[in-house]
């Protein structure tokens, strides 16, 4: 596998530990408190990092703030719907459905860029089916 895929693999491994650490941290506090504390700490660490090792002027986005604000809004709503839905359904079908998002990227690509690649469609749907089985989604629906 090519080295350019390494960052994605490391990112997936980091995200993969989310459920375990979230479960452990929720032994001490509720989900909302953990979430807000996490975001506050991350923002502070990044701010200190930029202050010490980069240029504080980087944070001046006044010329073109819209895309960054939209990015923050997308991330916020992803988080809000994620936690809201998590409280309303079992973890296994929840996770199995959440991993449909690469299929949604495929859909957005086809709508915005008129890109339709049959191999991509096949592999992304096959991968989703694999995730559905691996997370126990099939068993939770049938038994």
């Amino acid at each position, binding site marked *: *596998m090519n080295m350019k*895929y390494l960052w*994605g*693999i490391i*990112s*997936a*491994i*980091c*995200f*993969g*530990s*989310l459920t375990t*650490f*979230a479960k452990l*941290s929720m032994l001490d*506090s509720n989900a909302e*408190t*953990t979430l*807000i*504390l*996490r975001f506050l*700490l*991350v*923002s502070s*660490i*990044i*701010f200190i990092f930029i202050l010490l090792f*980069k240029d504080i002027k*980087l944070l001046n*986005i006044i010329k073109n703030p819209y*895309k960054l604000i939209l*990015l*923050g*809004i*997308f*991330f*916020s*709503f992803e*988080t809000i719907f994620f936690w809201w*839905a998590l409280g*309303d*359904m079992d973890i296994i079908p929840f*996770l199995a*459905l*959440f*991993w449909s*998002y690469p299929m*949604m990227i*495929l*859909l*957005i690509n086809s709508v915005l860029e008129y890109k339709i690649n049959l*191999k*991509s469609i096949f*592999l992304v749907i096959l*991968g989703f089916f*694999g995730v559905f*089985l*691996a*997370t*126990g989604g099939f068993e939770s629906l049938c038994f």
Partner: protein
Amino acid sequence: MLLGVVGVLFAALFCALYSKLNESLDYEISVRLFYQFMIAIPLVYFLLGNIQMADIISITLIGWVHILALVLIVSLGGYGFNILSIKKIGALKTGTLDYIEPMVGISLAILIFGESMSALQVIGWAIILFTLINIKRI
């Protein structure tokens, strides 16, 4: 349950939109992460709520270690490398690589919580591996 399904599909949709938008941004990773989390703090606070000072005070030392692990591994590592990956290979391939996540989650559940895997889950792992081996074709 139906509301939960709608909710999780919206979460997946916003996750896809977030990944696609990241493809077209020129800002440094640290700047993107800073604003992403800064914008999320008030929105999450007002829409999810339920945060009391007493909850924060009652967190034990080991609880703070877990939160710090979430901050460093998931928030900084996960999102930082995710944006780097989107810049290199695009949102779709990065999203497909994320299929590794359940494999990691299940491995940790087996190692830490002593859970076991069924035959169907093993087949699921094999299918994910097949997809990842063929990721160049996406």
